[in-house]
């Protein structure tokens, strides 16, 4: 008795078939969740993240201690 024999008798052939709807289901869940209205402000802010770099404290050159906002 080898692993192959065990696995052959488990009827695993059904798995891919079960998994397809399962995956569609999860995916639809994600889409529904992302579309929730309550997330609008959070997502709006998150969308702008690439344009932030953090607050600039100094330019990092010895003489020039500039301060100001680093945000674009």
């Amino acid at each position: 008795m080898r692993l192959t024999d065990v696995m052959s008798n488990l009827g695993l052939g059904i798995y891919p078939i079960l998994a397809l709807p399962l995956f569609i289901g999860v995916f639809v869940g994600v889409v529904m969740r992302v579309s929730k209205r309550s997330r609008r402000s959070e997502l709006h802010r998150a969308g702008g993240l690439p344009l932030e770099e953090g607050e600039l404290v100094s330019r990092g050159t010895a003489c020039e201690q500039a301060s100001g906002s680093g945000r674009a």
Partner: protein
Amino acid sequence: MAANEEHAVSVGAEAKAANAGHGADGPVGPMETFKYDDAIVRKFMGVTVLWALVAFLVGLIVALELIVPVATTYEVAGFRPFAFLAPLSFLVDTKWLTFGRLRPLHTNAAIFAFAGNAIFAAIYYSTQRLCKARMWSDKLSNLHFWGWQLIIVLAALSLPLGLTQGKEYAELIWPIDLLIALVWAGVFGTNYFMTLRVRRERHMYVALWFYAATIITVAMLHVFNSLALPASLTRSYPVYAGVQDAMIQWWYGHNAVAFFLTTPFLGLMYYFMPKAAGRPVYSYRLSIIHFWSLIFIYIWAGPHHLHYTALPAWASTLGMLFSVMLWMPSWGGGINGLLTLRGAWHKLTDDPILKFFVVGVTFYMMSTFEGPMLSIKSVNALSHYTDWTIAHVHAGALGWNGFLAFGMIYWLLPRLYQTPLFSKKLAEWHFWLATLGILLYIIPIYFGGITQGLMWRAFDQTGTLQYPDFVETVMRLMPFYGIRVIGGTLYFLGTILLAYNLVRTWMKRPKVYDEPVYSAPRLLPFADPAAPAFKTRLPDNIGLGKKGDVLVQHITSVWWHRAWEARPAKLAILSFLAVATASALELIPTFLIRSNVPTIASVQPYTPLELGGRDVYISEGCYNCHSQMIRPIWAETKRYGDYSKPGEFVYDRPFQWGSRRLGPDLAREGGLRSNIWHVLHFENPRQTSPQSIMPAYPHLLKDEIVWEEIDRSVLTHAMLGVPYPKEVRDGLSTQLAQTQAKAIADDIVAAGGPAGLENKQVVALIAYLQRLGTDINKPAPAAPAAATPVASTAP
């Protein structure tokens, strides 16, 4: 906010108030200051351009190799217009430079050296900024950089030497594979996920998700596809054989395109396009859907599993549906990228960066439309093995990966070298040269590929093949191949302009780079004040029921998902689960259910000499031009003989089905030609087939067989379960191999060929070729040598 600027550290409450603008949910800690590590980005960016030059140059060389043998002798009216290419003939008969050895170098350099370093540059630049944190460890960053370059150099040395595992895009030998796993997962992965852990921005921007999925999935693909048993320091045999090896390999190949060339570049797009356009991505919501749909669907859309597992028709249809569904997120994602430029289209006219991005995204949409189309069975029947695939991948690699990388580099150059770009005009020139170059590359190759496919299946009125001579179909490609070289040259020239621009910008850099200091509050452990506290609605129930009810409320409120998104470890686990589950469910049936690969009683293991010949075949990369898989299509069985059965490959480690036919299929080569024909053909294919573009292999007639290697090879196969009961006994396999070699060498002499070949590699290779595809017509041995019972033979 100004209040906090001079204080590196302030109390949590203050910081929280100051940080109100960040809108992050959850408490924040004291202010912290930090610097970004841009030195590492400069390094990765520099080598990206360097390896781009190498990858494209090697591409040009292999493109030339396909035309030189024929072009130099091409005559019109007694005149040879392409005689000037004659000095390049050495490319076709120098053993280190033959097509079979150099093409893997080209693909590996383009994918892992050029695209790889480009995504590392993108990831190191954007991750730090999106996390408002320096990379977790500078040491690991540098170890990653130098480790990866070492891998590339080792690849560039080993592939021309013929050291290969013989699996496409996974050619590198096992010690290099180990190094890749170590550098990718151990060094890069650790550094990346630890950076996410110490980040100062609660929300993980979608680009970070794309990067995380890339790191995890590529690690998984690489490890499982590379599982092999070493026979020596440079040689190993996969633990999978035949159909299973093919399944694993194309599971790897298909998803490597998804997770090495797509997801990280999408992360790049979602970060650098908004940067270049100066406005946020058009729809952030759509980008999240884009992410999850790629993770969930891509693995499934691999069409290969549909061909070899016994899926019922409706499941097969569902699978097709997945492929078609992939169109939506890909196009949604592409449009999302393009619409990021809303209101900024006027900038396009004089901004080469935006031009590169827009055309790059357009190529993404084109390729993701074409990909699922190519997976439709009827289209695939025509396109598979032809150059259509080559055109498709170049639209993707040159158009999508190349242009996104170039756009990013031009955007980074002034910022990283802290001086204006040397020449915007040259960047414009680069854009136009590259665009023209791509078009001159892909359009002729599309034509060529389709022509090839149509010629292979063309029949005349009498029902015989219209082009029975394979070489004729190759000849028809020559003009297309010629134009391709011109297109490739333009693209290469464009890249030289980029390199020049980079060097000149670098020369203007300041003596010392500024290192700006930033500040942001530290994040405290996530505890969302807005998180609902659930109470059971079942006061009369038993304890377990109450707990269950709370759990149900938790799950249905989907609050957990927000917490998951905010935690790198959990996000990583979730995407890993999605990808791993899909893969497991897809692969397990082929692996562990016997009926999927019916054994054929008459198919026996290779003899020791044939095994040695197979090693030569792998080492020379013959699979780059020759397939060994005849599909059940009339035009193919007519041309090559009976179609290939899964059971014929059970001793093939690795499988050598190939993916492209520049030469005829060899699955039924055994017995087709005489031994002496093969000798002459390998010495110089033009001796037997005047118009052949196959490289010459005179060295095979000189290089000696290393008998101990054959011994080790047999032993390793035996350890992997190949039934070699007696061959593994001390020295017996050498003896068997020498006897067989002597017989072939004698036959060659008898036919008037050269003497003294009995210990030369060519004899081993011929032994292998003469065996190919012959077992199926032999009677089954009286007592099956295999210990495993025979399930069934193909009807």
